[in-house]
Structures are given as C-alpha cells and as structure tokens.
C-alpha cells in the first residue's frame, strides 16, 4: 500500500519541491549580491548610509521572517503596494537573507589585512580592482562555511511561505496528511529535504575545497 501511496502523492510533492527550490534559488541569487553591497555600505564613511543600513539589518534580523512575510503580503497593500504571493515571498526572503549575508561578508571584509589593500594601492590598482581582485577572493574563502549554514537554513525556511498561501513542499505534504489522515507524506517530505540538504552540503564542501589551495 505504502509504495503505491507514495507514487500517488509524488506529483504533488514534486510540484511543492519546485516551489521550494524556486524560492531558495532566487533568494540566494539575489540576496548574496545584495548582502555584499550592504556589507560594503556598512563600512562606509558616510554616516547616514551606515545608520540607515544598521537600522535595516537590525529590523530584519530582529523580527521573525514569518512576521516579515505576513507584513509584506498583507501589510504593504495598506500603503497601496500590492505584491502577488510569489513576489511578496521573494521580496521578504531576499530582504531578510541579505542582512544575514551582509553580516557574514562584513566579518569577512574586516578580516582582510589592511596591508593587502596598501600593497594593491602601491601597485596602482583602482579601488574597484582592489575589491574585485584582492579583497573579494580572500573574503570568499573566509565566508563560505558561514554562508553554507545560512544556505541550509534557507532551504528549510522556505517552508514559511505557506503562511501567505504558496504551495511549497511542506504544504504539499500537509495537505496530503490532512486528506489521508496519515503521517507518511511527512516522511516523504523529510526525505526530500534531506536529499536537498545533502546535495547542498556536497556543493558547499566543493566550494570550500576550491578555496583550500592556499593558506
């Protein structure tokens, strides 16, 4: 009975998985560069910008992502900013995760020796070249383990989109569980999450190894 049951709910779970992966992938794609930009801004000498970004990071890290999702989808329309469900979810996820990435990148940027920057200045490199060719490669090596943690969290956090009615993997499992009065769909959901995180862990290890060629 079980095997047939699993094949029966599989299309629904697959559709939920594609939503989970879509939120995960796009959030990562947008939040990583945004986080990097924010981290650079957090080190700016322009105080108002720093204060603004500090406030942004404080708010996004200081309140639950679930609350932010609800606020973006149900709250923003009150000021005539209406986003459809998927865009609202993506908006909240990107804004939220960018702050965590920003803090990680900020730590990474701080750890690059000022002497490296002076050496690059003496070699006539321009600030943008110094950032791209000297600072960023060294930051990447340092931040990958911490970024990896957030990446794994993001896969699981993506299940929060149920709160604004999006059909992700966990929601697909919940629907099947309620309809068929069995915990089996949740076992399948757990297995799929485990496979996803196993693949990501493998990819992250590869990324770490990629930067392991120097000390």
């Amino acid at each position, binding site marked *: 009975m079980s095997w047939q049951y699993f094949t029966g709910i599989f299309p629904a779970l697959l559709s939920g998985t594609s939503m989970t992966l879509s939120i995960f992938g796009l959030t990562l794609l947008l939040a990583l560069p945004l986080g990097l930009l924010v981290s650079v801004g957090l080190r700016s000498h322009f105080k108002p910008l720093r204060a603004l970004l500090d406030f942004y990071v404080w708010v996004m890290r200081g309140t639950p992502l679930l609350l932010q999702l609800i606020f973006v989808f149900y709250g923003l329309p009150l000021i005539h900013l209406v986003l459809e469900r998927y865009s609202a979810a993506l908006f909240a996820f990107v804004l939220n995760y960018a702050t965590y990435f920003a803090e990680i990148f900020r730590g990474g940027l701080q750890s690059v*020796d000022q*002497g*490296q920057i*002076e*050496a*690059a*200045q*003496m*070699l*006539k*490199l321009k600030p943008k*070249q110094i950032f791209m*060719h*000297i600072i960023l*490669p*060294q930051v990447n*090596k340092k931040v990958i383990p911490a970024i990896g943690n957030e990446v794994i969290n993001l896969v699981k956090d993506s299940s929060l989109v149920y709160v604004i009615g999006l059909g992700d993997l966990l929601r697909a499992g919940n629907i099947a569980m309620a309809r068929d009065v069995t915990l089996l769909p949740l076992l399948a959901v757990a297995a799929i999450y485990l496979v996803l995180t196993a693949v990501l862990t493998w990819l992250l290890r590869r990324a770490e190894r990629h*930067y392991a*060629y*120097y*000390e």
Partner: protein
Amino acid sequence: MLTLTNISKQIDQRQILKAVSLTVKDGETLCIVGPSGAGKTTLLRIITGLIDYDQGQIQLNQREFRPSRDNLQQGVIGGVFQDFRLFPHLTTLENVMLAPKLTGLLSADEARQQATELLTQLGLEQQAQQYTFQLSGGQKQRVSIARALALKPQILCYDEPTSALDPNLRDSVSQLLLQLKQTGMTQIVVTHDLTFAEQIAAQTYHLAPLQ
C-alpha cells in the same frame, strides 16, 4: 632625482617627523637609518604615497610631486614591505603579472612574459606556479621585489628588508640591491641595521627620534 624639503608629519597629535630634508639622485641608493620610533617607516610611507605629509615639499625631477596623489596614479615609486604583503590567493607568477595587466601597462601575454623574465632574473623560475605560503622568507621578499619592478618604477623603496629574514640572508639581500643598483635603479632603504646599510649604501641619512 627625488628631493624632500622640510617634511613634517603629525600622527594622533604626536610629531613624528619635523623638517626632514633629503635628496636622492638618480641611480643612487640612499639608506635611511635610525633607531626604532624615529619615524623611518612613516617617512617611507610618505615617499610612497600611502600617507600624506602635513608640511614641506617633495619634488621629483625638479617638479612638484605629491606621492599620495601622484604616486598612486603613476606608480613611479615602488615599494617593498617589511612583511612582503604578497597576495596569498595568487601564484608567484600571478602576483608579479597582476598590476601591469590590470593597470593596462601591458597586455596579459606581455605581463606574463615580463613576470617570467623578472622571476628568472631573481632566481625564482622554479617557484612561478607556487603560492606564497609555499615560499621561504627570502623567496617572498624577491617575489615582492619582482612585483614592484613589474610596474617599471623609477625609484624602489624598501622597509627594513633584512628584519623579517634570517641573519645569514642579509648578504644575499645586499647582493640583490647592489645588482639592482647596477641596472640604474634608484633605491631608498629604511633600516636599523647599520652593517647592512654600510654594505649597500652610497649615502646615508640619519633620522633621530624627536624628543
């Protein structure tokens, strides 16, 4: 010819340099000697443009030259740091070819060829593909010199070139500096090592600590 006239510098309201005047002629090696805290490194940082001076004037070939503005654009004065400051994520070859390539001085192929030649001249051809953590202190220093030479500077500055090395490497550093002198390179060397200064210098400038 580089001329410093009455250069003064305060850092955190402490006077580090007061009315320092000196001249380095083309092809000459000048040693700036003095005890710790005399401001030798500060003076070198001013000459290379990493920091600005408060008062005085600097001239390069009889024309006004503000290193903090002009040198970071033109790269006429190169520098070798006491702790080398090589880029750890790049190979030895990449360290040497990076600046000429990125600044547009040379094409990527030309920069690679020049870097290979410089490393060969400095006896580092075997280390071209190694990363800096695989090099000895003396090798790191030579890579650092090659990296500075790659931008074809008129003047090359060294901050305490012997202090991070084993004492028995002092002679090889002085040999290298004498070798560069023969190519016509103008050199400014900050050191507290008087024996080393005697080995390499035609001219010595004593910097005394301020009271």
